[in-house]
């Protein structure tokens, strides 16, 4: 059956496609910026791109690796966002996915002598598979219980899997050399940024297609999603796999920053930091979580630098957990949508939409994380 709107029903409203172009208030019309609007947006985006690409030149050479780390954290934040932002499932064991990716890459590079690109693909695959396994369990539990399962998974991975000497070389660590084409710190930073960009675009395509819509629909109400023909179990698993794969890639990149992987890097504290940066960034918002990831990656260095530069600045890197927790509390109280909510207009403008949202009563929470 198709709705062939019969004549007479909509004679006033009009199926006349010509109306799309004439009336600027026609809801069918997709809003586009003016030429000046395009120029302005491209200019700002260009400045931003220039800032990111020249970032290694702004900081001391000893800190280039921290920029790479920021890019990796941004990617982890995108991975967390798929799970927490889109499906509403909490993951308190995400460091384990990153660790699985890191050790897989290390194993592939060192033991199997694979080229770096293949090792990265291998890390993506193992990250996805491990998420699939956890997802299979996670589908049976929800809320607090799911959080506990993910904690258990994270601890199990760190204490047991990452200590199997045959595949991880135990406490000595698994070497993970950088690819030949990006062995320098600068080149490696650009590789990380390029990878984040690719993940960003894939994530955007996901959310603007059928699968992404389905995943976000079941976050709000699984019964409604099912009644619309969405396979709830299948799409939850898909979200887990996508999230795990991105985390796997992030792990591979993380491994080669310091070119060695050790299991103590992937503790519960890191998982907690991942949750923190995603929530403070703003669940459900790509620019938000990426900003959050970058912020938390560079926060200790920023604090330390400030401490060294200004004698009156009391906070050293040791204060980072406290400041992070404070940011979380402030976020939850004042801006449940996180950094994304504070910068809502800017982000909307930069994504080629109107600066102000359409006026339709209360503005929806951009995080979509509240109230369910």
């Amino acid at each position, binding site marked *: *059956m*198709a*709705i062939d*709107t*019969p004549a007479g*029903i*909509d004679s006033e*409203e009009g*199926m006349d496609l010509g109306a799309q172009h004439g009336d600027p208030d026609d*809801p*069918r019309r997709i809003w586009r910026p003016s030429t000046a609007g395009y120029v302005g947006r491209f200019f700002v985006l260009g400045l931003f791109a220039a800032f990111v690409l020249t970032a290694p030149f702004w900081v001391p050479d000893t800190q280039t690796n921290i920029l790479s780390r920021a890019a990796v954290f941004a990617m982890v934040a995108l991975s967390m966002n798929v799970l927490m932002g889109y499906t509403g499932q909490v993951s308190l064991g995400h460091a384990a996915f990153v660790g699985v990716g890191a050790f897989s890459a290390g194993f592939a590079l060192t033991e199997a002598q694979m080229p770096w690109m293949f090792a990265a693909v291998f890390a993506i695959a193992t990250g996805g598979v491990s998420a699939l396994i956890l997802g299979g369990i996670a589908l049976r539990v929800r809320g607090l219980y799911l959080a506990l399962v993910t904690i258990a998974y994270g601890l199990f991975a760190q204490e047991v899997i990452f200590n199997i000497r045959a595949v991880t070389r135990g406490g000595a660590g698994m070497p993970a050399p950088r690819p030949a084409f990006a062995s320098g710190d600068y080149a490696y930073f650009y590789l990380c940024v390029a990878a984040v960009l690719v993940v960003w675009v*894939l994530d955007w*395509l*996901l959310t*603007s*297609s*059928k*699968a*992404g*819509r*389905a995943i*976000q*629909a079941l*976050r*709000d*109400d699984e*019964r*409604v*999603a*099912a*009644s*619309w*023909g*969405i*396979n*709830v179990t299948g799409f939850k698993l*898909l979200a887990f796999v996508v999230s795990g794969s991105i985390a796997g890639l992030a792990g591979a990149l993380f491994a080669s920053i310091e070119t060695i992987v050790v299991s103590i890097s992937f503790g519960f504290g890191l998982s907690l930091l991942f949750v923190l940066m995603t929530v403070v960034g703003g669940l*459900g918002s790509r620019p938000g979580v990426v900003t959050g990831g970058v912020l938390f990656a560079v926060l200790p260095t920023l604090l330390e630098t400030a401490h060294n530069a200004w004698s009156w600045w009391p906070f050293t890197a040791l204060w980072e957990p406290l400041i992070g927790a404070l940011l979380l509390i402030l976020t939850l109280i004042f801006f449940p949508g996180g950094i994304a909510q504070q910068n809502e207009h800017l982000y909307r403008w930069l994504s080629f939409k109107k600066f102000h949202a*359409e006026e*339709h*009563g*209360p*503005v*929806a*929470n951009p995080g*979509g994380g509240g*109230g*369910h």
Partner: protein
Amino acid sequence: MPALSAENISIRFGGLQALDSVDFHVNENEIAGIIGPNGAGKTTFFNCVTGFYKPDTGEVRIHGKPVTDLRPDQRAHLGIGRTFQQVGLVRSFTVLENLMVAQHQKIEYGIGSGMIGMPASRQEEKVVRERAFEVLDYLELTHLAHAPLGGLSYGMLKQVEAAAVLATDPDILMLDEPLAGLGPEESEEFGNRLLQMRRDLGITIVIIEHHVPFMLRVCDYIYVLNFGKLLAEGKPETIRTNSDVAEAYMGEGAATLA
């Protein structure tokens, strides 16, 4: 062959026999109603038919095909569309986005090609958007397209919900208390629209509703549930003059409904 049939449906929750050997069928392009006092098992029956509950006994068939072991989304693929008493919509989406995600099962491009942005899937997205507007036009809700759900009244939300279910392209439309939150005039209008939809779209409709005069007007056939059992069934006129039904609804001594 009936569009939808249910034979001998029973389900028990702990000590409560929520449904007891209920038989039900509705023919193609008919409107069937289910009435009954609160707690009679009407919504439970909907949940058994749409797959959210698995009945202890009995068989549900859609177009003659047994579906008792299928999940809700699989039954949706076979043509069942339903609404919920508590408004079945995705709260964080706009009206238009709701209507787009509701078309999920009709979108043919694969998950992968959607994710890598194949041109064919981009093209199909345009069709999905266009179709969402067609449905909105049909229900005269086009002006709400970009509204977030947060600002809409309950009655509006029920209308949008109906639009979303229509967007799933159902053969059998199951409405759970569609008049909740509507005033008398809007109810009247909704009845007209329902009759028109049946004519225009050739669909089969099953309605749960308390509003007896409305049901007597729009339904071709009515089932009366009471304490999980089928109390009566028949054409509206038979139901209206059935004294058992009148007693169940209005209390002892009542002879006719409405």
